[in-house]
């Protein structure tokens, strides 16, 4: 299936991507404006289902790397990611057949559309995490054997580099160092791979899911239906799973700082209504990592934890959180490709120094998920365990 992404679709992608951004990934607003500018000038972009990608295609994902707080102040020039893609083409001696996101949550859902509109390439409907994550090796591509190197990296001033690292951790470390020296934000092309490898390693259909989430929430709001309930319906039964409301309250405090290229800190939320008298704390490193109510953990990475405006279900990013906001926190289960033992080594709670093992959202809230429709792979894996718990 090929979807055509024009200006209207770009608006829905941006609002859906904010939810999959789980507080980080950067506010898609700036990226959306860049993509709209590019689409207005060069025309709409094709979004290709991974199953339709020929095995021998050469695919170069594109993205922005760095702290979201930098991006909302230091606005890009707009052609940096294209420059990185061109640099990588030159290095490989081969033209790209398509680009794709490495991260469908947050601003990086929009960057491939900027690149695609400007180059005429299609975008593939998939990514390497199905959400947002703070580090480059946190990619299903990496987990399932694709080298991130060589990476091409550009800043707004025109400084550029092609970097080869011995592994994807070293790649993250060195590229992060360059990004910090570039002022905390850079534009990259990396994980160049064949169409065959895309089909083997990507989290599939997360871009069209993001589009669907954005559209569903907008339409629910227009019809005066609960956008939160609409959100639960739209992810239920997909390779993700039904969204669960975890907490409702008012922002009490946001402690955040920019350290080593990341926005890190804690959000405290004072409970309202059925949660009155309780406090939720959310630990974040660009993205929300762990949510706990009065010390009891209710969700952790790699499951998705999103803070939404209680009324409109619009996602609020970490940098957008302000004292006094009324919010609802939802959890969305992550796809199974993100939960294998080798995957959890890269983005399980322990990697982020959280003192807990990973327990899938379904198993943390069995009563809720016992009543939910699960995707076929999750049905097989969790239904018996949900019944017995």
């Amino acid at each position, binding site marked *: 299936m090929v979807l055509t992404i024009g200006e209207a679709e770009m608006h829905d992608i941006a609002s859906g991507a904010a939810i999959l951004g789980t507080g980080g990934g950067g506010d898609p*607003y*700036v990226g959306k*404006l*860049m993509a*709209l*500018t590019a689409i207005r000038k060069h025309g709409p972009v094709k979004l290709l289902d991974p199953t339709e990608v020929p095995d021998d295609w050469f695919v170069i994902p594109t993205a922005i790397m760095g*702290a979201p*707080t*930098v991006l*909302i*102040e*230091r*606005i*890009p*020039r*707009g*052609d940096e990611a294209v420059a990185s893609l061109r640099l990588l083409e030159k290095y490989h001696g081969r033209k790209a057949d398509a680009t794709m996101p490495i991260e469908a949550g947050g601003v990086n859902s929009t960057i491939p559309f900027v690149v695609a509109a400007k180059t005429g390439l299609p975008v593939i409907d998939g990514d390497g995490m199905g959400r947002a994550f703070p580090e480059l090796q946190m990619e299903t591509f990496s987990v399932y054997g694709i080298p991130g190197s060589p990476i091409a990296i550009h800043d*707004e*001033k*025109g400084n550029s580099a092609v970097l080869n690292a011995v592994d994807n951790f070293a790649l993250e470390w060195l590229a992060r160092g360059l990004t910090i020296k570039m*002022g*905390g934000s850079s534009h990259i092309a990396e994980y160049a791979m064949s169409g065959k490898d895309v089909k083997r390693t990507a989290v599939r259909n997360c871009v069209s899911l993001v589009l669907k989430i954005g559209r569903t929430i907008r339409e629910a*709001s227009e019809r*005066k*239906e*609960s956008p939160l309930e609409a959100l639960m319906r739209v992810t239920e039964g997909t390779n993700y799973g039904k969204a669960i409301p975890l907490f409702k309250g008012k922002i009490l*405090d*946001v*402690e*955040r*700082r*920019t*350290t080593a290229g990341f926005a890190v800190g804690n959000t405290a939320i004072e409970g309202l209504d059925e949660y009155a008298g309780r406090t939720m704390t959310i630990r974040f490193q660009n993205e929300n990592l762990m949510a706990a109510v009065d010390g009891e953990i209710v969700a952790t990475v790699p499951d998705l934890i999103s803070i939404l*405006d209680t*009324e*409109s279900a*619009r996602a*609020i990013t970490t*940098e957008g959180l*302000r*004292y*006094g*906001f*009324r*919010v609802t926190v939802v959890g969305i289960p992550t796809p199974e490709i993100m939960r294998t033992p080798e995957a959890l080594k890269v983005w399980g709670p322990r990697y982020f120094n959280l003192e807990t093992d990973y327990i899938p959202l379904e198993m943390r809230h069995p009563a809720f998920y016992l009543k939910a429709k699960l995707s076929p792979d999750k049905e097989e894996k969790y239904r018996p365990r949900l019944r017995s718990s």
Partner: protein
Amino acid sequence: MTLKLGIDVGSTHTDAVILSARNEFVGAVKTPTTPDVTTGVVNGLDAVLQKTGADPSEVKLAAIGTTHCINAIVERRRLAKVAAVRISLPAGVGVEPMIDWPEDLKRAVGGTYFTVEGGYEYDGREFNRLDNSKLREIGRTIVEKKFDSISITGQFSPVRNDQEVEAAETLRGVVGDEIPVSLSHEIGIIGLIERENAAILNSATVEVAKAAARALEEALERRAIRAKLFFSQNDGTLMSVEYAKRYPVLTILSGPTNSIRGAGFLTGLNETVVVDIGGTTTLAGILVKGFPRQSSSAVEVGGVRTNFRMPDLVSMGNGGGSVVRKVDGRVTIGPDSVGYSIVTKGIAWGGSTVTATDVALADGYAEISGDPRVDVSRTKKLDKEFVKSAVSKIVENVEKSIDMIKTSRESMPVVLVGGGGIILPGSHYDKLKGSARVIRPPNFQFANAIGAAISQVSGEIDRVFSLEHQSRDEALKQAKQMASDKAIQAGADPERVQIVDIDEVFLAYLPSNAARIRVKAAGPLK
């Protein structure tokens, strides 16, 4: 006895209300707004002093709300031609200034921007050197092309403002001191696009605000009222008149905040939709637990994204003075309004422009008493079908506003305030879509001025705290105390001061651990 004066200068009417120091209603009047503003306010003062028998010397506080600036933006009129300067090159051009503004508003402010080399990094290091020679060139263009106002937005200026200040000096060196300059770091927080939008809107409305402030000062002087003069801000607290002249954008949504709070005060309701129909707009807001619901997303002003703290609002050009037309066979209301000129331009007044008030009079559900210039029979000549379509369009606009501000399907009470409320037919009170019942409290037409008079006084601090020898919690505690003390000094009741806003930017560029902390505290007058 100590008295408080609340004044609301709307596009068609000027309201004046007197409350006791303990917020007891003493009296209120409504007079027509005049083109010079001052005469209308003087008339209002005379009338309210006469009606209440109050002694001018007992008025210790005058709080003003005005819709001049927001109306200028909504109607795209009287706006200054702004030179929008962004300091960010070589970054920044991927999203050019004003890119997602409505085209007509962009045109109304001139739609011209300049980008210049400069800007800071997140840690306060220089991103690029400020190009002063290019700025001087820009300055010459500003003089040559006769720009009225300048806005300057520098990359990461909330972290470090030196370049914005330097750029202003350089430009003033070329253009002189006559052209007002708005600096983004004094108006907004982190988020360049939103802060830049706010700075441009501020530049566009500075002259409108200055004229309004001067007119009010003059009016009070003429009636020997030596009260402390304040303007209400977007968040429902008061701001000194000097500050308001420089930062009008911080007062542009005070009107709705005031009417929502005023509506709550008049009805005693804590949970309700408030619809304020004025001369130019229908505004819908919502009172939750006694406070206007704050918008958690970027607030749009006239279709432009900003990052202010403001009440959640829906605004439509659907007021008493809104112009009614037939365009391509369809009847339209607004968005333009004849404003105070209704008394010469409106059909009922013998003019030739059909306003929403005229169709309300023609249909027979509205009445205007006490204005000898009004002759309702003039409106009877309007085409019946046209009037009927216009009335249903007015009702539809109000219903749409209510629908948009509510976020659930459940019906809520609707408090109807504002002088333009007569354009909504009383026969529809019981059957408005989405409304449980419509309440028009006594003195409903003064909700706005009452909201201004019950405004709280605030204290704000904004400074860098070293975290070397104290924890972040201790620094925050200290900042909160300082803001509360300032509010108390400004006259707030020490028992009832609350923290209303906290904003924090961590500064990694200083040699020691440090953070810029902004805290605002507010409380009712003691």
